[in-house]
């Protein structure tokens, strides 16, 4: 049992517990806070996988932007959450059976491919080389420039689309600027 393995087990255990609390907590605010712990645990796993840049992006994009945005929306829709008592639907057991079935079938596929289980980690180039290569590959014409540009257009479309969708409704007869 090396130090890395212990670190992995602790991070993975905490992440799973936090994820379970996220999907089962009756209060949406608690659920969003547990989500932050889940995302932080995943950032630790990225660090253990020598993907330091992705760990930073995980903290900056997921914890900083998405989780905070979710908490703000939870607070904005608090009134609806307080009215409804049940958080899970009547057929929650069906969802649990589907999730367990999926995990069992994934496990069966995994056991049938022994080359995956025995793969040892290969030597990885230094952190600077990876980062340089990653940055160049995203703007290289022969590599990933197309998905990169499509992602930027997608982000712009999502930006404009979410502004339009969340624009306040104007009822007829209502004065401009009055809500």
């Amino acid at each position, binding site marked *: 049992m*090396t130090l890395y*393995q212990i670190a*992995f087990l602790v991070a*993975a255990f905490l*992440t*799973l517990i936090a*994820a379970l609390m*996220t*999907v089962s907590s009756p209060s*949406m605010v608690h*659920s969003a806070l547990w*989500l932050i712990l889940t995302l932080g645990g*995943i950032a630790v*796993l*990225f660090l253990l*996988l020598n993907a330091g*840049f*992705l760990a930073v*992006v995980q903290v900056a*994009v*997921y914890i900083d*932007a*998405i989780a905070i*945005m*979710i908490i703000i*929306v939870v607070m*904005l829709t608090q009134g*609806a*959450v307080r009215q*409804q008592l*049940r*958080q*899970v*639907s009547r057929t*929650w057991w069906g*969802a649990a059976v*589907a*999730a*367990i079935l999926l995990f069992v079938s994934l496990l069966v596929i995994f056991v049938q491919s022994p080359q*995956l*289980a025995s793969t*040892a*980690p*290969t*030597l*990885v180039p230094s952190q600077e080389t990876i980062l340089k*290569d*990653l940055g160049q*590959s995203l703007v290289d014409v022969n590599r*990933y420039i197309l998905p990169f540009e499509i*992602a930027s257009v*997608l*982000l712009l479309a*999502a*930006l404009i689309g*979410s*502004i339009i*969708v*969340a624009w*306040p409704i104007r009822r007829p007869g209502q004065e401009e600027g009055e809500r």
Partner: protein
Amino acid sequence: MIPLSWYIIFAGLLFCVGLYGALARRNALAILIAIEIMLNAVNINLVAFWRYITPEKVSGQAFALIVFAVAASEAAVGLALIISLYRKRRTVAVEEIDMLKW
């Protein structure tokens, strides 16, 4: 070192937890949160395969970055929809959202 199988099993477990949340919750926000958990589980697998099988190519990390961008835009549009829906119907429960049913 950590075996690759640990990462795969952990990502599978996390994905199934997210799937349960997406199917069982009534709150549209909780479903969005569960989908974020599922996307994260996929990202762990992408990075683990990059690290253990093809560390000389950065394709796994580049793919994970694209997944980040898609997850961010999906969260933005989803949250905007929830806010707009809450203004119109005063609810975030998914079974009460039946405007497209006929």
